[in-house]
């Protein structure tokens, strides 16, 4: 820890919305004496404590592990999903990245497929539905061969791990001008298509996950690369290219429909 406590004064412009049918609006809240060692969410905690004691309703926001892995937290901060730092979830953003006197705008993820639940909380169950459409390997507990029966080259395993690092936060969708989920879907498709265990179902998976994504109201990919820029796990858009190849292979080279 660097010695001493630094504090800053900021002005929050935070989105308040009672439910998905409510219109919603920005509320301006001046916040004094923010310790710069605080994380962004701890700053919101402090604001909420103050609002509660003033008899007002606190700002609702999703969060859980607060160590950047559960994918529960997220908001658009000054126009950027998860805020200004690269490769980071909102819970890992610290107030030392802001300056005294800053105005900070905080909004929920905005996408057709994500309805606002309350304030900064959105419904991301559509991402679960995409996984349910095929983001798995069909096998049941008990029938697996020895783990070392199929060697997997380290390079392939590492690439699969790069893709598997996705935390399902939905920042990619929020950042995309088309609200597309291509990075999210591409990451899962790539992980499983790279591994020998996932190959038998690769064609079926690519077709059904894409179909589900379209049905749920996610947009198309037009190569804006905004998703990659905000991804807290820095998942590469190369996964979208791999997904496209899998999709083409499935469409032309397999009997799957």
């Amino acid at each position, binding site marked *: 820890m660097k010695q001493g406590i630094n504090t800053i004064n900021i002005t929050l412009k935070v989105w308040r919305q009672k439910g998905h049918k409510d219109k919603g609006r920005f509320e301006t809240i001046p916040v004094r004496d923010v310790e710069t060692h605080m994380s962004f969410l701890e700053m919101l905690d402090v604001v909420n404590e103050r609002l*509660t004691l003033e008899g007002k309703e606190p700002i609702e926001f*999703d969060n859980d*592990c607060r160590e950047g892995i559960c*994918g529960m937290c997220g908001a658009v901060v000054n126009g950027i999903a998860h805020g200004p730092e690269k490769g980071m979830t909102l819970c890992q953003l610290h107030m030392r990245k802001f300056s005294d006197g800053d105005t900070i705008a905080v909004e929920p993820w905005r996408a057709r497929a994500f309805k606002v639940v309350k304030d900064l909380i959105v419904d991301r*169950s559509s991402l679960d539905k995409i996984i349910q459409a095929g983001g798995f390997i069909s096998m049941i507990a008990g029938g697996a061969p*020895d783990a*070392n029966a199929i060697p997997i*080259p380290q390079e392939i395993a590492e690439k699969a*791990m790069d893709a598997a690092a996705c935390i399902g936060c939905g920042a990619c969708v929020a950042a995309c001008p088309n609200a597309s989920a291509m990075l999210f879907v591409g990451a899962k498709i790539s992980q499983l298509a790279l591994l020998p265990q996932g190959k038998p179902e690769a064609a079926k998976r690519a077709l059904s996950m894409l179909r589900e994504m379209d049905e749920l109201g996610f947009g198309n990919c037009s190569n804006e690369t905004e998703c990659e820029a905000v991804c807290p796990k820095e998942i590469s858009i190369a996964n979208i290219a791999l997904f496209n190849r899998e999709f083409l292979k499935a469409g032309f080279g397999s009997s799957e429909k």
Partner: protein
Amino acid sequence: MQLDGKVPGGQLSEKWDRHRFELKMVNPANKRKYHIIVVGTGLAGGSSSAALAELGYNVKTFCIQDSPRRAHSIAAQGGINAAKNYPNDGDSIWRLFYDTIKGGDFRSREANTYRLAQVSNNIIDQCVAQGVPFARDYGGLLANRSFGGAQVSRTFYARGQTGQQLLLGAYSSLSRQIAAGKVKMFPRREMLDLVLVNGQAKGIVVRNLITGEFESHEADAVVLATGGYGNVYYLSTNATSCNVGAAFRAYKKGAFFANPCFTQIHPTCIPHSGEYQSKLTLMSESLRNDGRVWVPKNPGDKRRPNDIPESERDYFLERKYPSYGNLAPRDVASRSTKEECDAGKGVGTTGYAVYLDFNDVIERDGIDTISKKYGNLFDMYKNIIDENPYETPMMIYPASHYTMGGLWVDYNLMSNIDGLFVLGEANFSDHGANRLGASALMQGLADGYFIIPYTIGGYLAGTAPSEVSADHPAFNEATQAADERIKKLLAIKGKRTVDNIHRELGQIMWKYCGMARNKEGLNKAIKLIQELREEFRENVTVPGSDSDYNLSLQKAGRVADFLEFAELMVTDALAREESCGGHFREEYQTEEGEAKRDDEDFCHVAAWEYGGYGKAPIFHKEPLVFESVELTTRSYK
């Protein structure tokens, strides 16, 4: 009452096979007539939901987060143990079992721990088949690393995100069953009560966290996989929603709570920095493979760590425990760290931190190797503390991490309530008084994929499909009671926030029932907890209403449970007049300051029965019988 763990007879190594054969079975066509509720979607809940649905049961699964993929198992960093012996370094099922039972200071049930080691290898096979991208060597085979409390390399890992990858594996199997219609998934639900009909678990009452509405769900059996109670300390490495609620509701309905004082304080966490702090971040135990823990030899040495010469540093773990060194088990390492800080040798602004130094290994292996192994952890540290651990040693301090205690279960993982099963961290059975690193993931998945699918069949085979429906009066009663509790919380309208009271509870527990405990302090804690509970009932303020999403209201309910549960934990710590594993009673220590067990009087599981609000809980005992291992003094010297 003396509890019966229902451990099968025969040789230790044959018990599970024999039991699986002897268990009654439900035939495949009949399985679809049974309904099972699973609460929680971490490793234990996710894997059991999937495995039970794969067998043909109808499963309803509940989780508190917006998606089953968020459960806190996801945050486990370091790895998962298995006795594969791929590195050819002498591992075996017996060695994994022995390390685990010794690591738990001989306070776990022998047969359960052995079974855990036995199925460990199946877990790795299962996960690889699911597409979990474990680390591999250049030949494409699986890689291993070492963890605390073991002298072999048996830990499988996926970078620093092993928990995430295993959970996503279970989540993918669960998702497949949701798509197949065999699991009905209910996210953003909080379990508010367990429903018993004729003494059997027949359902639960949950609250929909978005609408605030209550829902009743009936079933033939209820499986709780709701994690641990580490957040009783307020500051912990647990996620913010981790709570004791579901387990505590079951306790109030008659399930026994076993060994609640067995909590694990993890040695390597980022130290506390300010009042506003909401959680403590773990730095994986795997760092102790290469990092060296030290403090300045002279108390009060305020120099920057790199300015302190080698001769004035005390690598205290290497000094005190030469054969395990920096890889001493968690309880031992944590306590040792506390001792050094209490002696004034701690570093950092608060004096409650020690160094974890990577200088030597960076010189030996190069910065690239280290960054490949621990890059994400180093980045996380740098981001939180604003110092570069490649140049300046990390600062670490112990924090609440895991709870070995939990609801009492027998060998079938069934509690003393018929039809109520408890899996993973929520039960008490496998880790004794201290859990070894990389064993929590192992237990969660063992329980879910490979144990409950067999043992629940044994129960259901003897029970006709339930005719209890959700309009049974027992559901109505439970719903009304839950609604009253919620209305009461909203009506208090006092002057202190929920977090503020929770923080105070945490301070009481950390001070008097943390890494070291004594009779006087524990007695004081009971009084303080009771006072704080009254303060909560009179002076808490909960904003908002109960008809939409209201996190403060959710937290208020959880803190109310913690305020009652804390007293049970302290009561158990008082009753256990010995030191073992994470439970260190200052009155019971050796001359060298190590834990002094009392096998004569305390070689048992303490299982507590709810005695009513404000009344003392009732003590029950399950004697621990060791048929195959000799109880020795645990030494890592």
